[in-house]
């Protein structure tokens, strides 16, 4: 029983960052119809900006986090302006290839700049865990969960409560009509890509101190983000959030009670099952986001 509770707590904490990753990716796909293969690289960049800010520049841990998120936001905006805007209107395969190329450049760039040896980001939290009955949780991970949930809530508020969010939802439903209503769709695309990218960078910056930072860390993260998006239904933000927690739970329980060697396979088994029964994802519904 104690072991089960510990597994559930672990899954909850991991799920928060998975949800962040998934939401960023699903937003970009839903609104822009772009399969973002730089998502994993942006996750890595977020972690390295965090590393640079904390370990190299000696910036306060809590100040470094917004810096990393801002870094992801700016890099995302740059990618959209330089690589996606010129290809607007070309078919999805073209943009997909451009994105794959950009992903490779970003990953090789971090390898070239920082080398292949993993880096550790020091955190200000105490080493000793918080002990609640039989369950132990590290303070750092609790902070990560709290920060992830806050960012998810902010993203929701942005989409549902602001004018920018209204324009994003309009562009998602019908970009031509939205343009006729005076929405600057090109600006919406840049904002969407920057927002999605900043969420990926945030996930990297949050998990960097929990694990270690290395150039290939984004590979598996990207794969998981795709899985979460498919699980939740393409373009569905709520679905991606719930999908993140489901994937974390599947991995944790699969590793705990089935076989730890196949931890990363568990999530994908669930996805195969979901796609067989509900090909549009668990939460696919009417044409809208939020």
């Amino acid at each position: 029983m104690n072991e089960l509770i510990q597994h559930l707590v672990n899954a909850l904490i991991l799920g928060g960052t998975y949800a962040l990753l998934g939401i960023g990716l699903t937003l970009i796909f839903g609104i822009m119809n772009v399969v973002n293969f730089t998502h994993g690289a942006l996750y890595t960049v977020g972690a390295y900006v965090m590393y640079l800010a904390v370990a190299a520049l000696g910036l306060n841990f809590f100040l470094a986090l917004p810096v990393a998120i801002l870094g992801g936001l700016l890099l995302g905006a740059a990618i959209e302006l330089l690589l996606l805007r010129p290809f607007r209107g070309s078919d999805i395969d073209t943009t997909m290839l451009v994105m794959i190329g950009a992903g490779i450049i970003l990953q090789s760039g971090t390898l070239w700049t920082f080398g292949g040896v993993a880096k550790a980001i020091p955190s200000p939290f105490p080493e000793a865990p918080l002990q609640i009955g039989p369950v132990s949780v590290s303070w750092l991970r609790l902070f990560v969960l709290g920060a992830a949930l806050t960012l998810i809530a902010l993203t929701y508020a942005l989409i549902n409560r602001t004018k920018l969010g209204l324009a994003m939802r309009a562009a998602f439903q019908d970009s031509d009509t939205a343009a006729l209503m005076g929405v600057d769709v090109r600006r919406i695309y840049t904002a969407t890509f920057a927002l999605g990218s900043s969420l990926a960078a945030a996930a990297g910056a949050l998990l960097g101190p929990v694990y270690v930072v290395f150039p290939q860390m984004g590979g598996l993260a990207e794969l998981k983000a795709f899985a979460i998006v498919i699980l939740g239904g393409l373009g569905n933000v709520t679905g991606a959030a719930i999908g993140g927690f489901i994937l974390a739970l599947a991995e944790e329980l699969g590793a705990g009670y089935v076989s730890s060697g196949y931890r990363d396979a568990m999530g994908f088994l669930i996805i195969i099952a979901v796609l067989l029964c509900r090909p549009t994802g668990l939460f696919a519904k009417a044409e809208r986001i939020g």
Partner: protein
Amino acid sequence: MLGRFTLTTAILLALTATGTRADAIRIGVNEPLTGPFAASGTYVVNGAKIAADEINAKGGVLGKKIELVIEDNKSNPTEAAAVAEKLITSDKTPVMMGAWGSSLTLAVMPKLADYETPMLVETSSSGKITTSGNPYVFRISPPSSLEAETFAPMIGRLGLKKVDFLVLNNDFGRGAATDFGRMLKDKGVAVGLVETMDQGAQDMSAQLAKLKASDADTIMITSSVDQLVLLFKQMAALGLKKRVITTGGSQNPDQIIAQAGAAADGTMHLTTFLPWSPDKTPDPKATEAFIAAWKKRGFDFAGVTESFRGYDGIRAIAHAIEKAGSADPAAITKAFWSVDFVGLNGPIRFAKAGPAGKESGQSKPDVYIIEIKDGKVIVPAL
């Protein structure tokens, strides 16, 4: 004008390149410089470079300089095999060193047989490497059975009753669990769970939660330094307090202390080199000289427990080339059997291992146990 200039330069460069090719004896180095094993592979390569520079400063081998051709196998077995093929066929290296991890080395081995080119194995510890009948393999690192054998007398004094394993899900990890498990059972120690983890895995809290709930008193872990750092941090986060003993010799205790901090306190590690007390090593003078050269290049002291293998590996290869009298793969393969010198962790001389007629070479290095106590490495009296 510019075109002609670049063309001339290119021809000059090409001439220089073929020039070095003719004068130098090339040694292939097949190591993981990116991916999960990047830290360890980079250390080994840096150790190899120190050996090469030292040998060249003394006039090289057979009157020629040696030249390392270093390639990155990306911690990936498929890449490791491709790198070996490239080193043999394109760079024409008559002998190689590699490939760090057991799965990487095992992937390279068929290529050695195909091209009849010898390889010195500097780090891998899976038993399969020297028992599968590949006569081109010469290993200076201990197989896990040898580690287990050296560890056996310490069991009583440590008071082990029941041991769980947490190992990498590859030849290195599973091999260690099998060899240590067999030895422990022979000694009357119970063996409980055998949990595995992927080599790139970053979150092992599921496995650790399971190990926390088990009634074993000790966890034996087989992995490399980056994952060990994560494991010790995650163990501390879960409040898992059991005796921990790691195997495999790729722990870089100083890096663990620097990156895992207090979480690593009390952990014990089976290692094959004692840079913390050079006077206790088989060749104290050589150990001190190596550590001095390492520091002089500005490398992190933490790396020496890994890099000494690259250093000894290249020295062993140089001995073999010297004895072979030529840089010919067949002659070097034969000459490996007569290599005999004192390495940084014991004598390097190869004994026959594996099926008769197709034996691989296995050297028998020293194995030590060390403990991390209050952020320092100590050698416990056991």
